[in-house]
């Protein structure tokens, strides 16, 4: 496996009961790269994203076939500890979902559940993560206030800080800006640019401009199939397939 490859998906099939939601998907994720997953609603891109940190395990009656490798190790191997896996592959959700706790406790949560008790270590990591998520300056005087008092955009950056605090290697983002206004969206996109220096980022988005702005590689999904994947500037300017071209130019979807 290529040293720059962080994750590799090989022949992934996913079933909800009898519904074949993902059909034989194979896709690589480069380290320190942003990969965007695009496609119309219901195409399977969010399901695919949730396969990458086994978030789908929670749903009854699902089946997963195929391989998902993280640093050459299959994450669906029975020996894998799912909790540790999810601390290595962080996730940011569509709607900001901070816990009804203080800003501090939100960011400290992942550290606490992993068993860390050292107070100075936790405090330092909280500060560092909030700085990394470009939120520190806005909240440094009120980190013991409720996280629910923050604006939507701030809440989403808090959720990113919360994910960063456990030092993940990969971050999955499921339409992280779709519930935010344009200015908050811009801040999230700037953040993604900063974060990809040290992290591998996989982002699902409905917004083609956003995919073009933030990603290095784009993958187009349709009806549970991976239709085309390429470097973002190539996929958006010279797509190989008519189907891809139709979608990115807005002729269907």
């Amino acid at each position, binding site marked *: 496996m290529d040293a720059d490859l962080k994750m590799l998906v090989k022949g992934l099939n996913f079933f909800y009961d009898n519904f074949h939601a993902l059909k034989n998907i194979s896709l690589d994720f480069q380290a320190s790269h942003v990969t965007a997953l695009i496609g119309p609603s219901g195409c399977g891109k969010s399901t695919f994203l949730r396969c990458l940190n086994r978030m789908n395990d929670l749903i009854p009656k699902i089946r997963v076939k195929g391989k998902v490798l993280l640093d050459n190790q299959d994450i669906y191997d029975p020996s894998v500890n799912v*909790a540790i896996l*999810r601390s290595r592959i962080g*996730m940011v959700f569509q*709607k900001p979902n901070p816990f009804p*706790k203080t800003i501090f406790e939100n960011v400290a949560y992942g550290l606490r559940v992993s068993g860390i008790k050292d107070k100075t270590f936790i405090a330092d990591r909280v500060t560092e993560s909030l700085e990394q998520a470009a939120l520190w300056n806005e909240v440094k005087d009120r980190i013991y206030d409720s996280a*629910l008092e923050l604006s939507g955009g701030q809440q989403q950056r808090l959720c990113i800080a*919360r994910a960063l605090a456990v030092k993940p290697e990969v971050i999955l983002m499921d339409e992280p800006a779709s519930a935010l206004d344009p200015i908050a969206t811009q801040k999230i996109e700037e953040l993604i640019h900063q974060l990809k220096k040290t992290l591998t980022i996989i982002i699902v988005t409905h917004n083609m401009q956003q995919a073009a702005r933030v990603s290095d590689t784009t993958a187009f999904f349709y009806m549970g199939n991976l239709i085309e994947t390429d470097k973002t500037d190539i996929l958006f300017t010279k797509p190989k397939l008519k189907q891809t071209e139709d979608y990115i130019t807005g002729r269907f979807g």
Partner: protein
Amino acid sequence: MTNQFALPSIKYRKFKQAVFFTLLRFAAIINGTAIAIILFFLLKNGYKVINWTFLTQPPMDSMTRGGILPCIIGTLYLSLGAIVIALPIGIISAIYLNEYARSGRVLRIIRLGINNLAGIPSVVFGLFGLAFFVIYLKMGVSILAGALTLGLLSLPVIIGATEEALKTVPETYREASLGLGATRLQTIFRVVLPCAMPGILTGAILGISRAAGETAPVMFTAAVFFTPDLPSSIFDEIMALPYHIYVLATAGTEIETTRPLQYGTSLVLIALVFGMNLGAILLRAHLKRRMHI
């Protein structure tokens, strides 16, 4: 530009709305009136007997004078005991049902059991408590047997309230917690339960305060006609407010003379139940503030 054809129709719709809202308002007012009438009736007939002696002395002269302290203490002990017994079992059951159990035959059977438990008349609980706790387990007529019976009686309410409270915790909190590497157990204890706790405690206390006023289960398992002594252990028999009212109103030779005492005792019982409910509301407000909800 006005649409002249729409005018009569909008008038008619507004009229319909006014009629309907008036009906709704009346339905709501009936509730308020009912409680007001009951309270007024009790206050009017019972307020004269409420004084310090009534609240701090045992009954005297064949229960025609004196106070009801043993009954107050008895009912408090029974309620407290029922909470201690039913709250943990109820909460744990609800967590299992709502957070762990996968839908299937076993879950359906358990739910059927809980729903039927809720439908059992309280006198049957009393008889069961007598047969099982008092006689079979040799607890005797005691606080323990009464508290267990009342606890059992309030279990379905507590399970129901807890499940409702757990359902109000957004799925996104669970996902966020799991996504950060927490186990399901950590997610339940650190995120789900704290969020649901205000609702759980309110529901539980409401359930217990309902049970505290039950007469039948208590008269089979815990209460006696008369005892001047306050209990010294959980195996002691006690007096209880609801049973005392029943005794005064039906079984004495001085039913008419003790009428004011009956109303006074009812007032104290209602005050106790309202007090518990108020406590539940205050507790919920306090927890919500602390939880930053």
